[in-house]
């Protein structure tokens, strides 16, 4: 089975990054969900954050 098809056959299991409201709605619908305590990375500098992410993936 292809990867995109597998998502359409499996129950959702979600990591929520951002609006907590969406995690609450998913939980209420019986979906397994973990909320990330997100805050702007690298002191809020998107360019610096992108550089750090590249280093992390190397």
């Amino acid at each position, binding site marked *: 089975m292809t990867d*995109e098809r597998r998502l359409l056959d499996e129950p959702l299991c*979600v990591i929520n990054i951002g609006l907590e409201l969406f995690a609450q709605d998913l939980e209420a619908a019986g979906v397994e969900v973990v909320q*990330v305590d997100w805050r702007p990375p690298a002191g809020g500098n998107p360019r610096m954050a992108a550089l750090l*992410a590249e280093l992390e993936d190397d």
Partner: protein
Amino acid sequence: MPIHTQVIQSSYQDSVVLMRLAGEVRALPGVREAACFMGTPANHVLLEQTGLASAGSRAARPEDLILVVDAATGAEAEAALAAARERLARRQEAARAADVRPRTLDSALRRLPGANLAAISVPGAYAKLEALRALRRGLHVFLFSDNVPLEDEIVLKDEALRCRRLCMGPDCGTAYLNGTGLGFSNVVPRGRIGVVAASGTGLQAVACRLAALGEGISHGIGVGGRDLSAEVAGRMTHFALGALATDSATEAIILISKPPHPEVLPGLEAALARLPKPLVVCCLGAPPRLLGRVRWVETLDGAAEALAAGLRGADWSPQPFRDPEAVAIRLGRLRSAGLCLGPDVLGLYAGGTLAHEARLVLDPLLGPVAHGDPCPGTPGHRILDLGEDRYTVGRPHPMLDPLIRTERILQAGHSARVGVLLLDLVLGRGTHPDPAEPVLRAWGQGRAAAKADGRSLVAVASVVGTPGDPQDLNRQVAQLAQGGIEVLPSNAEAARFAALLIRPDLERSLLAGG
């Protein structure tokens, strides 16, 4: 003017929490206005533009919270700021008392190793970073964030295709996977119809109309509003159509979008022709036609109706109104009350696709319909999509926060030009718990202002929702109707009804069946 500002360092809160906090502070004694922002570059621009910036606010970093209060007295402003600080402290205390939450995607994955999807709604400037990380960890992505640069979208979708993962968005408001709604989603039954949508409210409107017709959806895959642009070239639309083509739960497919870019259209038409399942396409603004087995229709409710009829072996043809007799009676009732309407229709929309659809319906009936804010006093019909990026910088989407719209309903009451207000209400999970209430309150005041000037103001609305939604479609419709708002069964019908109010001579063509 006693405007007081306070910066609370290292106190990141999401936009919904900030909206609620601002609402609580606004209700405190003496407070005229309150705003809560994170110190992002976009918000600093907004504060400068509105004259609310101060030396203190300018020093705020993206993870710092800026509170701005305008109150009758300095003491009341200070008291409101203290109350806001206390509420935030209580919230942080409650968060500490609850489970310690993971701070990164990787630590979240250690806690939930079976995760198959990341739902991402961080500010647009950081969205690419988080989404790329999720795709590279093997997750599908639902990307709600807006204000994401086009070049970032292309990078994300290329990476998704390389990993064979869905990248739903950016700016994806709604999706349904395996019966579960993501983002702004209605409570609709599962069924046999799969939807690919470059439009969140379009997907909601189609899913709700299908539900009313006794059909359900297998999956609704959002792809983001720019997917069929020349630059993005349908990357995710093609991928999603392919996934639904081989999905055993999907018997038929609906595609919803704005018109594909002319360079993208031939490839899309070829792909649609190859799909082995019944298919209806609604690319708002593209002409209705039958291309092989593929039916192109003009409206969202038309897409749902045409496919449902096709699956049942029934004929379907588009009609201006489902019940023209009822519309004629309603018009007669309004006119007999002696309307004195201004000449213009003003559409105030929360749903972007619904705004676009209304413009397309009104244009041939009323002449040119403008889009976006005019210079004050500019004549002419106008539709505003209040969910556009330009209105939502630093504040939540109007489906969450009614303030953007209610301010404008009040202004309309004072305008001699506006005769008909055209509105959409979008229900479902994630949206305002009772959208009819603030609309009715503003409408009551707007109508009273018009009446005091010897004018009439008619409000025409449609509601996207189901009886199973938390807000309950039937309850919202009844509330609006009791408050004097004309509720039509679809957005396209609401737009046609608005046109009939302005141009009675259209009755012959639009109500011919009655």
